[in-house]
């Protein structure tokens, strides 16, 4: 009797699982198909695309489109390729992510472990930042950057992204630290550690998982941002996304689809890289054993 029920349980499990896998496979295909098209077409000469089938594999495999997208394609008026703008993006995104994550961690630490009158109201106000649409702040922000002498520069863009990101990073770290035992902070105080020492030596070393979340979130958002880049950057600080748009729009004569595809993939690579590398550090249980267990 019990063996029979177990048997059916296993079989229904198998049916359900097959169904789930099929659905997942379908979704994966749905998402991977455009990528497949981009990748294959970026490896074809242009004539194969204009003259033939977008879905077919290349007859002649070539990296010319990639080379062109990277270093020789026309961006606006300059034939520089995406390379300098890729660098611009890196110079913007790395400090912006680092600063906003650090500030978020510090805010979360203060809001949970050094509570003061009105701290919840302050946190509520910071959360507001997560809901303000970009478009609303464009004009005031442009004026602010102008006043500060940061208009059209990479530091200006970094400032904008840091200010915009703090709401999110604070939210992440506050919620993470809220479950961090306050007794540890008290113990460290008795041990003689000060405000920053506790932060560096006790809080940050166990913040790995949430720091990864914050970095992935911030990196993806800042790297992919188009609006701020298009609004506040000039030619020397223009990020990758804006340059990609110019590449696609400024090609005179024939549209070089293969180059566009290669450029688009180039623009997406860093976020992909961050997901693959940082995703491995999503380790749970870093906190295990600090408190009773």
């Amino acid at each position, binding site marked *: 009797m019990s063996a029979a029920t177990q048997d059916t349980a296993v079989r229904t499990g198998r049916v359900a699982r097959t169904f789930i896998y099929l659905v997942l496979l379908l979704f994966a295909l749905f998402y991977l198909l455009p990528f497949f098209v981009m990748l294959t077409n970026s490896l074809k000469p242009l004539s194969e695309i204009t003259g033939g089938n977008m879905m077919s594999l290349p007859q002649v495999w070539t990296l010319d489109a990639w080379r062109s997208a990277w270093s020789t394609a026309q961006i606006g008026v300059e034939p520089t390729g995406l390379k300098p703008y890729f660098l611009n993006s890196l110079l913007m995104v790395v400090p912006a992510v680092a600063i906003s994550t650090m500030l978020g961690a510090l805010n979360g630490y203060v809001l949970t472990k050094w509570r003061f009158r009105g701290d919840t109201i302050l946190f509520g106000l910071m959360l507001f930042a997560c809901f303000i649409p970009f478009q609303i702040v464009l004009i005031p922000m442009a004026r602010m950057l102008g006043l500060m002498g940061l208009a059209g520069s990479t530091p200006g863009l970094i400032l904008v992204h840091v200010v915009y990101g703090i709401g999110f990073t604070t939210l992440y770290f506050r919620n993470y630290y809220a479950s961090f035992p306050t007794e540890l902070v008290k113990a460290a*105080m008795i041990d003689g550690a000060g405000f920053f020492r506790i932060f560096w030596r006790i809080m940050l070393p166990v913040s790995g998982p949430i720091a990864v979340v914050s970095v992935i979130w911030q990196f993806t958002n800042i790297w992919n941002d188009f609006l701020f880049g298009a609004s506040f950057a000039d030619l020397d600080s223009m990020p990758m996304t804006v340059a990609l748009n110019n590449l696609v729009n400024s090609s005179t004569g024939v549209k070089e689809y293969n180059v566009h595809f290669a450029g688009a993939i180039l623009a997406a690579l860093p976020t992909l890289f961050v997901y693959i590398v940082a995703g491995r550090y999503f380790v749970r249980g870093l906190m295990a054993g600090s408190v009773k267990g």
Partner: protein
Amino acid sequence: MGFLDISHVTKSYGKVQVLHEVDISVQEGEFLVLVGPSGCGKSTLLNMIAGLEAISSGDISIKGRVINGVHPSKRNIAMVFQSYALYPNMTVGQNMTFGLEMHGVPKAERERALADVGKLLQIDHLLDRKPGQLSGGQRQRVAMGRALVRNPDVFLFDEPLSNLDAKLRVDMRTEIKKLHHKLGTTIVYVTHDQIEAMTLSTRIAVMNKGYVQQLGTPKEIYDTPANLFVATFMGSPAMNILPATVVMQNGAAHAEITDSEGVVRRLRFSQGNMAEWAGKAILLGIRPEAITDPEGADRKSGNIQPFANRVTVTEPAGSDTFVTMTLSGKDVIARMRADASVAPGQIFDFAVNMEKAVAFDPVTEARIAG
């Protein structure tokens, strides 16, 4: 003037006052236990000694120095937390020497202190492990070790054993007591476990609702509780409390109660001054171990009185047998030797040790001194 002086200390959160005029003076080398039900303010008082909570009014001083407002790290205290609060990212050794490092003690000296304490607590083989790789009892030792290496004036413990299982708790209790004997340190220890309080302390402060109900040695607290709260809180099973009337018979004061059949019975008081209460209602308090079989009665007592009564339930607990009966309409528990032959439903000849009985004023609930 004591080693640690708590004088007129109060604590309020906004309008709510959670500690009322606490006055405790602790001598050097004393083991003071703060005991009381949940929410009575024990941890609050301890945190105020540690400097983790501000003092609303009053003074706390250590070695004659008032420490109100002094930073926790400058009070020369060490604290062991209920959750152990070990830094998860550091090894056991780093955990234990973190405080010394913060106080700028040179590395060689830190290593020496660590080795000494590690050996003392038998955790020297664990020094390179992370807290996550330790058992509950080992974490407990490390937490104590972290306090010990600093060689503080006063040790503060906040329910350090409450996360351990029953057996380990008893073992660690003994160990803490041994450690105290060996090192002679001054300890303030918070618990809500009255057995821990009785076994560990040199003095106990029983607290309730933010008031210190009684401060005294374990024996004083147990034998002459200041009031009904202390009497029923300390001791397990709790002291039996029955309504009684004081009557005079042959010139001696007696407590008049009813037995299980509703028959009026009298028990002669040992206290001389109970005559003043003649004709009045009191609450009679008798500890379970003061009601026994005649053979098990305390031979040194000068006032053992026989008392036949019907047994309701018997509960053999290995070392003792607990016997329940009805007196004055209340369930009363007697603690018998394990081999006392007593069966439910039977009329049994009990022996009541009235020398150990106490009486309470039913209105103020204070003990009637005798």
